C-alpha cells in the first residue's frame, strides 16, 4: 500500500493506491454518479455511470474499478461525460418498464434520483416495452423484472455477504435477466434464506417487500456497512479462513 498523488478536476489530491479512483474522489467530496456500485460489495463496472476521462487516454475509464497511478490527471464532469451519463439513464429508462408514478419505490429510487440529477425531461430513444415476468412466489418478497436495471447488486450481496448465491444472470444481450436458482420460481429456492438483503440493496423497485404499496418502500442500506465493518474487525468468524 502506497500513497499516490493525482489530479482530479484540476485539484491536486493524494490517495491510497489500493483504493479505487471512485473511493479517492469521494474521500475528497468529489461527486461521481454510480448505480451498480455499493460500498461493501465487489465492483463489476456494469452501469458505466462512473466513467471518467484520463488525460493521455482516449478511452473512458470506470472510476469504481480503476486504481490510481502516480501523476494521473482525471476529469469527472466534462460535457462529454455528462452527455454519456444522460444517455445511459435514457437507455435504462427505454429498456425497461419504469412507471415512476405507480412504482413502489417512487421518490426513493436511485434511478429516479439520477434522472433528476441529469435533468432528464424526456427520453430520445424509443421505448421497448419489453414483456417481463413478475415473480411473487416468495413468501415475503417480489421480483418485478420490468424495473430491473441489471446492476447485479442482488447477485453480489447474496453471494458475497449472505453466502446463499440465489441469484444469477440468465440469457444474453437485451434478453438478460436476473433469475433465482436455475431459473426457478423464487419461492421454490432452497438456497434463499429470506434474509432480504437483495431487496434492500436493489437501487430500484425491482426487488420489493410483499404488501408494499405505491411509493411506500424506502430501502435502508446501512446494514451492509455494519456487516462489512464487523467482518474486517473479525468480529464474526469467517468460515473459509478458519477452515
Amino acid at each position, binding site marked *: 500500500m502506497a500513497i499516490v498523488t493525482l489530479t482530479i478536476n484540476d485539484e491536486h489530491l493524494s490517495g491510497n493506491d489500493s483504493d479505487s479512483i471512485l473511493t479517492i474522489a469521494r474521500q475528497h467530496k468529489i461527486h461521481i454518479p454510480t448505480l451498480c456500485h455499493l460500498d461493501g460489495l465487489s465492483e463489476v463496472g456494469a452501469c458505466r455511470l462512473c466513467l471518467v476521462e484520463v488525460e493521455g487516454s482516449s478511452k473512458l475509464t470506470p472510476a469504481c474499478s480503476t486504481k490510481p497511478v502516480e501523476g494521473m490527471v482525471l476529469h469527472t464532469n466534462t460535457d462529454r461525460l455528462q452527455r454519456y451519463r444522460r444517455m445511459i439513464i435514457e437507455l435504462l429508462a427505454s429498456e425497461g418498464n419504469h412507471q415512476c*408514478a*405507480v412504482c413502489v419505490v417512487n421518490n426513493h429510487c436511485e434511478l429516479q434520483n439520477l434522472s433528476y440529477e441529469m435533468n432528464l425531461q424526456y427520453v430520445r430513444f424509443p421505448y421497448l416495452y419489453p414483456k417481463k415476468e*413478475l415473480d411473487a412466489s416468495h413468501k415475503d418478497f417480489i421480483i418485478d423484472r420490468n424495473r430491473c436495471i441489471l446492476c447485479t447488486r442482488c447477485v453480489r450481496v447474496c453471494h458475497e455477504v449472505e453466502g446463499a448465491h440465489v441469484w444469477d444472470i440468465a440469457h444474453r444481450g437485451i434478453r438478460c435477466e436476473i433469475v433465482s436458482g436455475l431459473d426457478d420460481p423464487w419461492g421454490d429456492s432452497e438456497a434463499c434464506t429470506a434474509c432480504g438483503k437483495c431487496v434492500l440493496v436493489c437501487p430500484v423497485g425491482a426487488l420489493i417487500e*410483499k*404488501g408494499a*404499496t405505491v411509493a*411506500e418502500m424506502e430501502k435502508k442500506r446501512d446494514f451492509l456497512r455494519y456487516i462489512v465493518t464487523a467482518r474486517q474487525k473479525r468480529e464474526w468468524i469467517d468460515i473459509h479462513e478458519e477452515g
Partner: protein
Amino acid sequence: MVKTITIEPVTRIEGHAKITIHLDEQGTVSDARFHVNEFRGFEKFCEGRLMWEMPGITSRICGICPASHLIASAKAGDEILSIRIPETAEKLRRLMTLAQWTQSHALSFFHLSSPDFLLGFDSDPVKRNVFGLIGEHKEFARRGIRLRKFGQEVIEVLGGRKIHTPWAVAGGVREAFDATKKEHLLAWIPEARETVLLALETLKKIHERYKADIPNFGNFRSLFVGLVSEDGGLEYYDGTLRVMDGGGNIVADKLDPRLYQHFLGEQSEPWSYLKFPYYRPLGYPKGMYRVGPLARVNICDYIETPLAEAERKCFKAMAGDADAMNNSFYYHYARLIELLFSVEKIEQLLHDPSLFGSHIRAKAMINRDEGVGFCEAPRGTLFHHYWVNENGVLQKVNMLIATAQNNLAMNRTVRQIAMHYVDGQSIAEGMLNRVEAGIRCFDPCLSCSTHALGQMPLHLQLFDVKGILLDECVR
C-alpha cells in the same frame, strides 16, 4: 331530407365525446347517440400487476375522482385478503369519500354547470364557462372554487396530497389522521355550509327561470340503482344495493354488491367505447338504470344529517310523494343535497374520537382469489373486481364505472332534448347548448368510464337517411 346532426366535442364534461342526431325524411329526430370515442385499456394492462399496487394504479384513471377509485380498489384488496379493516381506517376512508364528493360535486355545479344557468343557455359560448362566471358573478364563483378547495384540503390532510394519493391500501390506510389538523378543517365548515345553502337557493331560482326547458331535460322513467345503509339511509362507502323503478317502487333490495355481475350486465355497441350496463332481470336495453346523486337521493329512506334530510323531503315533495324523481335536470338538485350532506357529515366525523385511533392497517396474505370493492363515487356506484393468483398477481380486472351505468339514460336524454329542439332545418346554437347541458346533468366522467384520457371539445354532425353528412358544427 334525412339528416344527422353531430355535436363534437361536448364541452365542460370530463373526457371526450360527440353527439350525433339522426333525422328522418320529415326532418324530425329519429335517433340521437352519445358517442364516447376514447379508449385506454386499464383493465387489460393491469393484468400481471400486483394486487397491492392497484389502489395507486387505478386512482390514476381520473384526476377528478381518484379518491373514489382508490377506495374501491382498496376495498377489493380487503376482500382478497379477507380482512375486516380497523374501525379507525373505515372512518378515515369514509371521510375521504365524503371529501371526494365535496370537491367533485362543487366542481360539477359551480365550475361546469352554473355558467349555463347563470349566464344563460343561449349566451355567448366563448364566455359561457367558469371564467365568464368569474366575470359576471365573482363572489358566487369564488365561493364555489373555495368549496372545492375545502374538499381537496380534507383529501390532502388525509392522504398527503390533493390528487392521486396512494393513501388507502388493502387492509386499511397508510397514515393516521393528524389530530393537529382537525381544527383547521373544522374552521372551513361554516363557510362550506353557507356556500352549499347559497347554491341551493340559486338552483331553486334556476328551477323557476327554466320552467319551460326543464321538462325536456331527460324526463323519463327508468330504474335507479345505488347503495343504501343497512336501515335504508343514504350511503356512500358500504351498504347494500337497492333498485327502484320510476314509480318509486323498490324492485330489489339488500342486494350484495359483491354479486353485481348477477344482476348488472354490460352490452357493447359498435359506435361507442363506453359500454351500456343494464339491469339483467329486465334485459337490454329495457333494463336502463340511472346511478349517481339523482338515484341515491331517490332510493334512500332518509339522510342522517338534518339540513340535507330537510332538503331531501323538499326533493321528494317535488317528485310527488310515492313517485321517484324522473327528470334528469334534478341531478343538480340531488347533487347539492349530497353536497350539503357531505359538509354536515364531515363535521360530524371530525368530532368523532375514533377517527384519531392509531390502529389503521390490518395485514394478511392472499386468502381469496377474487375480490369486489365498491363505493359510491360522486357520479354513482363504482365497482372494482379483481381476480388474482395465489401470489396476488392479477389475472383479470373488471371495473364498472358510474358514468357507464348512466350511458343508456344519457342517450335517452340526448334523444329527448333533440326531439324537442331540432326542427330539421339547421343546427341552432341553443339546441347544441341544451343537448350539452342535458349530458352535463349526469356530470359524466368519460376518463373514468372508458378508463380513457382526454379533453372534451364539441362536434355536432347532421346525417341524412343514407348516412351522408349534411351539416357539421365544430368548436
